[in-house]
Every structure is written in structure tokens, then in C-alpha cells.
């Protein structure tokens, strides 16, 4: 988490991504979001590299004195996934017994503030903000707001997700479970 913050801050200078690259990357992120929202989870998995990591840690509240010393309460994982566990999560949804998602909820992903911050070989790094709305069980509504760092790799004229380091802005998560992909 700190690692990510440092990288975000150190990339404050605007990286001159070409309009074509920016457009191309945004369209990819929208496609990916649409596949999730339309429950085409297997097709979404195809857009993830075999070595993908997908992580989300908890947030903590630290006092000024400790923050100034760079000390923060310890965090833990909410997601710490690889391709295998992400595939197993999809398989879980397919069992018909994943009760948090039975009947299936509806989700809507909103991706904004897409900033490409670097290119290295065939990979690019980007930051973006996300909002995810989930409607479930007749009248439940949950929203998830956060930011994330993605690393994408060029693949056959398209892209693969290599890393997705999510942050979620809540301290105490105000929803009973995260049964969806953020």
C-alpha cells in the first residue's frame, strides 16, 4: 500500500502518453469492466495474464505523531489473488451455491482518471479511480470507491492485465461481503 502511494506520488510529472495509447488503454479498461458487469467472467479471465496478481489491502487510521514517523498500523489482505484463485472465484459463482451471489447481483463499474505513468518494454503502468455499484437481493445497494494501479502487457494487438493493486477508500468496510470483482 505504501509502496503504491510512493509510486503514485513519484509519478506526479505528467507522462506524455500518445492520444492513441491513451485511447487504446481506456477502451481496454472499459471492455474489461463490461465483461465483468455482463457476467462474462470466463472471457474476462482471458484478459488476465497467467502471472497476474490482484490485491486489495485493508486501510488503517494512524495518529499524526506516528504518520510523521512513517509508522502505520499493520494492514492485512482482503484480496491476495493469482490467476488460479481468480479462476476458482469464477468457478464458485458457477456452482449455483455461491449464496452471496444467488440470485445473481448486478454490478456497474465506472473507471475514471486514467493516467498512464510509464512504459517499460511491452508493459505500461497506469493509475485510475473506480466506482463499483452493486445491486443485490431485491433492495440492497452497495458502492465501492477506490483507486488502483494496473500494469498491462501488450498481447496480440491487445492487452493483458499483469497487476491490479486495488485500494478501497473505506476504513471499516460498510458492506457484509465482497462477492464481486472490483
Amino acid at each position, binding site marked *: 500500500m505504501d509502496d503504491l502511494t510512493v509510486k503514485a506520488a513519484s509519478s506526479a510529472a505528467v507522462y506524455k502518453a500518445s492520444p492513441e495509447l491513451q485511447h487504446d488503454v481506456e477502451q481496454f479498461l472499459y471492455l474489461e469492466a463490461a465483461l465483468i458487469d455482463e457476467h462474462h467472467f470466463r472471457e474476462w479471465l482471458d484478459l488476465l495474464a497467467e502471472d497476474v496478481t490482484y490485491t486489495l489491502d485493508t486501510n488503517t487510521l494512524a495518529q499524526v505523531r506516528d504518520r510523521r514517523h512513517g509508522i502505520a498500523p499493520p494492514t492485512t489482505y482482503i484480496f491476495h489473488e493469482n490467476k488460479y484463485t481468480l479462476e476458482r472465484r469464477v468457478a464458485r459463482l458457477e456452482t449455483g451455491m455461491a449464496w452471496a451471489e444467488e440470485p445473481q447481483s448486478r454490478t456497474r463499474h465506472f473507471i475514471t482518471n486514467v493516467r498512464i505513468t510509464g512504459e517499460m518494454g511491452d508493459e505500461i503502468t497506469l493509475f485510475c479511480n473506480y466506482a463499483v455499484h452493486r445491486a443485490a437481493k431485491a433492495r440492497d445497494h452497495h458502492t465501492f470507491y477506490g483507486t488502483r494501479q494496473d500494469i498491462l502487457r501488450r498481447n496480440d494487438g491487445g492487452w493483458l492485465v499483469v497487476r491490479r493493486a486495488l485500494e478501497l477508500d473505506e476504513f*471499516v*468496510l460498510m458492506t*457484509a461481503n465482497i462477492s464481486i470483482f472490483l
Partner: protein
Amino acid sequence: MQDKLNIKGLVDARHGKVKPAIYVDEDVYQLELERVFGRSWLFLAHESQIPKSGDFFTTFMGEDPIIVARQKDGSVAAFLNQCRHRGMKLCHADSGNTRTFTCPYHGWAFGLEGGLTSVPLEEEAYRNNLDKSQWGLIQVTRLTTYKGLIFGNWDESAPSLEEYLGDMAWYLDGFIDRREGGTEVVGGVNKWVINCNWKFAAEQFCSDQYHAPYTHGSAIQVLAPTPENKADGKPLGDGQTQRPAWANGLGGVQFSENGHGSAFFFTEKADANVWVGGEVSNYFRETYPEVEARLGRVRALRLAGHNTIFPTLSWLNGTQTLRVWHPKGPNQIEVWVFCIADRAASDEVKEALKQSHARAFGPAGFLEQDDSENWVEVQKVLRGNKAQQTELCMQMGIGFEERRKDGIPGVTNHTFAETAARGFYQRWVDMMTSETWAEIETKTQEYQEEIVRG
């Protein structure tokens, strides 16, 4: 003592019946805060979270915010996290290190030992007439540490923690005393909100093995260590018996006493549940001889199963998840989840445990997602007047309680039973309807003697 809320009419543990008004009624809830949470031993923190002088961790006892702080002499003290001036919440950090707790409102400052040490404009505003010695933080009356777990109790007259735990300590030791050096918390605390009554969560971890095969059907299917379920060429739980612990047919035990509960299946090998990673299951197998020497075969082999220390501290062996169900009104809880590891384990094993733990039992855990869903949906149904009046069945295994002769202590039954749920609600009634601890203990004792016949 008067039972104005007719608590006794809502729970009939002897016949296994509960009226669900106990899960929604605001008056019942207020009485719980006073009589249950105000008198029980409540888990506050693990010692490993506050190793150094000045380290603090903030938590709750019932709905009261609490600061737990390591003192200069190495002892631990806990205080109500409330400034004595205008009642402001004093400390807003999850944890940290400090010399003083200074109120953000007017700047009153309190020392680590709770004393009021500094008042802004003391001379001008108070003409030096404020007796600071009278306005220290309210200290949690009793504080005891049991093998690394720090417990607090507001009630001077409560039994000691050891008496309160009774035979439950035998089961707790099987979780936190497996290796020399005890345990520690790995990583931070996962915190999230579930819109359900605290008793659903506490009762399930106390008594409900029965839900696992069905509620967690999806997770079991997709995480089972079959050859198809492979990561990096190795299945999860590599080398374990290729069945969930509850399917192995060797039988098991449910324990109930003083409102606490525990249950597990017998196994032949040191197998944890199917969802732990290969490194974790290897660790349990490798350390088995040491653990067996400390705890004996039954507890050394026990790497699965559920537990609740009344009222709100629960854990799962093997999965290494410890949690508190903090009540937030009758219709909501805030879950606080800690990953517990043997201190003597390697960093690699601790990291693997942390990953396994989050995979199975966190807000996004393969299993835990479905637990919270059940409780939330029950709570929604209970908005209905008829639903609140409808008796619920809690009769599994009723009349089959026994005391075993093989050294497994307490009132027991087969693992699929609601003995521990009945014991949990009986204890709850005893606390809700008794003025004194002596009265509580007598009632609980009578109940326990009555249900073990012959």
C-alpha cells in the same frame, strides 16, 4: 428479580425453542449491553499487538470505545476512550505509540496510565482549582491476560477469567498453546459491517457445524484438493486427506459450558481444512509431533472446527481466524478479524497463513461471504411482526448430552448438535435475568446438571 422484558418467555433452552424477538428488540439490546457486555470477560487485544511501552490498540467493549495501552512497567491497562471533560472520543487511531492521549476537542491530555496530566489554560480557566486527580480516564475494572489474549471485564464481582472459561480453556489451549512461545497476530485487523444481530454470528461459531456442508457448498466444491484444482502444479492443502474434515465419518464432538461452545471432527492425520495453502498444511504436519507432545493426540490433530467464548469471541482452528463480533445496535455488528499464528512459525509460514486466512475468512473469503449473507437475510425477515413471534427450532441432538470418559472435558454431544447453542442461550438468559454472578452461576449449573442425565 423482575423479568420485565419476559426474557424467560423468549428462550426455552430445555426444549430447544427461541423466539426471534431477542434478535431485534431495542430494549432487549440495551439490557444486553448492561448485563451481558457489562459483566462478561471480553477480548480486547493480543499482547503481540502492543509489545512496547506506549503502544496502544483501540477497540470496543459492547458499544463502549476502549483504549488498551502498554504501560511503562510492561503491564497492560485499558480505559474508556472518552474524555472526562465533554465526553469526546479521545483516540481516533486504530493503534500506534504515544506518551499521552490528547483530546481533539479542548486539549485535555491523559497519560498512559489514564491520569489527567494537562489541562489547557488551567490557571486562567480553572483558577487552578481543578482537582485533576479526580478526572482521570475510566479504567476497565479488571484486566487479565491468558496466553497472549488480553481480556477486560467491567464487573468487580465477576468470577476470574479462568473460572469463567472453565473447560473452554482446554479447547482454547488447543488453538493458542500449540508451540513454545505462544501465538501472535499476523498483519492487521479486517473490519467490516454486517447488518445482523450479534447472536447469530456468535451462536454459529459456538454451535453450528451443521451449516458448513450446505452454506459453504460452493467453496468446498471449488477449493477441494482434487488434481484439477491446482495452483503452480500443487493443489491447495497439498497432501491432505482429499475430503473436507466433516466428511470423513470418524465422528466428532460438540462441547458446551457456561455459554461457550466448540465442535470438531476426529481425524487420523494432521489435516487442516481444504482451503488452506500447501505451505500451511505442511507446517501443521511438520509441527505435529511437537504439538502432540504438548497437547496430546486429540488437540494436536484438531486443525478444524469452530469455537465461541461467550459472548462474542470466536475462532476457527487451522484456518487460524480469531474474531470479535462487536455489537452495533440490535441489527448490526462490526466484525474484527485477526489472523493468529504460532510465534515460532517461520515468516514464510506466517505469510502463507495470512494469505490462506484472507482467501477463506475475510469479507471476500470464499467461505465467509456466504455466512454473512445468511445472517443478513434472517435479520431482514425479522422486520416482520409475525416473524418476530415465530418460534425457531433449536432441538438438534437434544437429550443426547453426555460427559465423556476419554478426557475430552465438559458437556458434550455429537458434533452435529445444537447443545452449544442451547447452552449459549441459557447462559444469555441467566445473565439477562440475574442480579448477581452467584445467581448466574447457580442457574447455569442447574441447567448443565439437568441436561446430562444418568
